[in-house]
């Protein structure tokens, strides 16, 4: 996510991060690492994250599309007009 110049590459990275976070949630929410759970804490959080990831991926892709329409490139290094 931090190293890719391609916008799609960054999105891929974001997905990986979120999936990794999901795995952490499930893992730490299991009954092996916490005593008082309802058994499904981790999976519940992971569900939320999945939904959010999906929405966010859609929005990000829309931004990337618009960016390509305006700049004819999806090199994120060229997206520095918000500087200053």
């Amino acid at each position, binding site marked *: 996510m*931090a190293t890719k110049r391609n916008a799609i590459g*960054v999105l891929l990275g974001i997905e990986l991060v979120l999936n990794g976070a999901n795995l952490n949630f499930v893992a730490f929410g299991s009954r092996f690492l916490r*005593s*008082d759970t309802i058994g499904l804490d981790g999976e519940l959080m992971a569900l939320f994250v999945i939904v959010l990831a999906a929405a966010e991926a859609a929005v990000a892709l829309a931004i990337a599309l618009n960016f390509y329409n305006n700049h004819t490139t999806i090199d*994120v*290094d060229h997206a*520095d007009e*918000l*500087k*200053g």
Partner: protein
Amino acid sequence: MEHLPTIYGAAVLLPLASFFIILIFAQQLGKFAAWVATSAILVAGLLSFLALGTWLTHHWPAGVHHGGHEEHAAPVHGEAGARNQKSESGYFVALIQESVPPPAPGHETAAHGANEAGHGEHEAAEKPVKAGEYYTLGQFGPRPLRITISYYVDALTVLMFCMVTFIATCIHFYAIGYMHDELTEVKDKEVALSTGKFLERPGRYPRFFQYLSLFCFSMLGLVLSGNIAMVFVFWELVGICSYFLIGFYVERKSASTAANKAFIVNRVGDFGMIIGLMVIWSTLGTFSFGPVSWTDDAGMNHEDPGIFDIVRPAAANHQLIVPDGMVQADAKEPTGETRHGKPVMGSGVADIVRDHASSRAGLESADSEIAARTPDWRAQGYGYWLLVLAGLGIFCGCVGKSAQFPLHVWLPDAMEGPTPVSALVHSATMVAAGVYLVGRFFPVFTPEVLLVIATIGAITMLLGASIAFTAFDIKRVLAYSTVSQLGLMMLALGLGGWLAGLMHLVTHAFFKSMLFMCSGSVIHAVHSNDMRKMGGLYKKMPVTAITMLIGCLAIAGVSVPFIVGFSGYYSKDAILEQALSFWRANQTPQAGLFFVLALLGAAMTTTYMFRMWFMTFAGQPRDHHAYDHAHESPPVMYMPVVVLSVLAVSVAWNYQYIGYFAIAAAFFVGRALQQGWFKYIRPSHAEHEDVEHETAAHYPVAHHAQTGHVFPAHAHAPEATVLHGARPAPSESPLTWGWVALMLVCTVVGGFVLQKGIASRGIEGLSLAALLEQARPTGTLADATGAWTKWRWPNEHFAHEPANFSTIVVPATLLASASWVGGILLAGAFFWWRALNAEDVRRQFAPIYSLLSNKWWFDELYDAIFIQPTMVVSRVIAGIDKRWIDGFLDWLARSCVWFSRVWDMIADRTLVDGFVNLLAAWTYSLGVSLHAVQTGRIRQYVMFIVIGAFAIFFLISLFWSPTLAR
């Protein structure tokens, strides 16, 4: 008697009310302001006479056995034999015979030595007094000092009230006529504007009466005052009223300068008076004349003695002693020794207090020892100088107010005011206030002070009389005459003649105010003050001429010796008798000088007064234009004069003899009416209509009087000059021998009958002298000697004892008669028969003439001594002011400006602005640097997120150690 304070309070406040009414409603009142003022003073006069009646019913003058007199020194009955003694001072003798027990053998030689009652063994009785307070303004301090509005009513107050209100009423009526000009626009011929025309200003009629009312209030308040502080307040009030009235014609430089002069010279005298007041307060602890009762905080009643009781306590038989306060203030005891063995004197009181300070009893024992030592100290003479200083201080105020030498310079200039002012203020009342205060404060004066008073009085008398010889302004003559007569009054009081001096005050008030009013009529008629333009006015103004003649006779003291005389005769002779008895008591030439000077003054008075009369009314007119226009004044002006002339003749008479005078007067008045003397002055209406119809005005004079014009319209002038010759003159001799015989017979017989009738009702003792005798301060009927002078002041009754009749009374009366006869003859020789020539005398005595006509150069002297140095000093100080002080202030301002510029440079711009700018720069650079963070590069932002997330995990791991749940 209980109502006297209320009556007098009302009489004092009525003119004040009139002042405020006129002040506020001057526009609406216009002409009626005069009636407001006149009715106020008239009612005050009625109240005064009501009070006189009340007083008489309670305190009939001594010598008559009328009901209700308790305060009476050893009444002696069965002295009727002495009362029949026919002497000119018959009533004086009667007074004494009634009030003094027969002299003990060997008593004739009055023992010498201080403070001896020279009149036998009786106790000096208290005189009848009603004193009290109206209102306490404040009470301060431990003793305490009380400032109050209080009253002190004795026979002198009663008499002064009657005199002041009566004269003031007459003058108010006179002024209604005199100030007529002020009702319309006034063209003041003495004020020239820069354009060359004369000033035209609106008239100020109401303001005049407003000031007159304020003056009456002030004078009456002064007379009523019961404490010396209140006297001082009213003293200043009469001074300021005099300032207003003198400067009434304020646009005239001479008038406004004269007003300033009067007030400032008065203030110089008041400076001494304040010193006297300070001495009195600090040593006696009270200002009040009479005893004061007060309650302290604890509710206890105290009665503190008044000033007179402190200096003449009953314990010392009412003889003058130095009061405790003064003795203790001055007492000195040896407190140590110098190196050479001489004792060092320190305050005795402080000594004792120091000794007792350590003892247990403390202050009370100190007090009792001080009280025990006081008689010792008094005998050693401590504190006497304080008593002398107090007396001199108070007298200093009187010197200013009564125009004595050296503060006499304001009175002649005060003639710039209108004549009613001169008549009321500067002859009868305000200047009399000084003499009144000397009379009131008489018990406090030591013989040394009396000597000073007599000396200054004598100097003033001669000064005024000498200058009056050369004055040509008729009012100036009268002004200097007033100065001279006031000097005579002070001389009388200074020689111990309390009754003589105050009697002269009263008689002088009547005839001097009348003289002033007559002179005002003359000035009005001739339109000039200058006597050199007058002459022969007797035919044109008979009433004025005769009344002025009566005034001159009164001031000269004309009389049939030992039998009857004008009012001035009684008072002047009393003064001369006291002066002569003073000489006999102290057989030295210096003591006799007072008598000689008084006699000389009397002769001079007669001479210059008759000079004035002859120059004005007798002989040939000197200025025909003025003579032609001259006319008698309207009745509103001459009636008060006539009334006052009656009193000028008879005010000093024993009122049982009034019957003679009344009958003779009735004859004269009847004759005058019958002869039509008054017709030329106030015609009937029928005649007036004739005047309207006839083109040739028969009585132009009367016409003018009727319409109130004082300045004859010039349209009448041509006819007037023609008809003045044609108008029938008063018949050559209206008094036929038959008529005169009839009048004399009726007067003698009728007067005798009336007198018997009056006397049988038991009122034969009433006369001016008897009333004044009631007010004589307790204890002053004894011979007095001073501590510093070796002279003896004989008591006033000494001159009238039967044994001294031929040694004192007879020489005094005869010499006085010689003086007035000589005076009239001399004046007549110069100015009537023209046997001697005044011009020659003037040329021969040119240096003396120059001295006198320049008023002894007092004005120039004061100018050189006081005014020029003051001007020099003021110019120097003004120079210092301009150069140094202003320069300093300018420098200060410039430095301030310079400093502010520098400060602006340093502090404002550099520090304050710099600081603020620095902050701004920092903020900006911070912003700029933060700028750098936002590169816009996404990968960097993602890096930040990663680093941030790691940082959070790290921080949390530091502070939260998770426990693995079980």
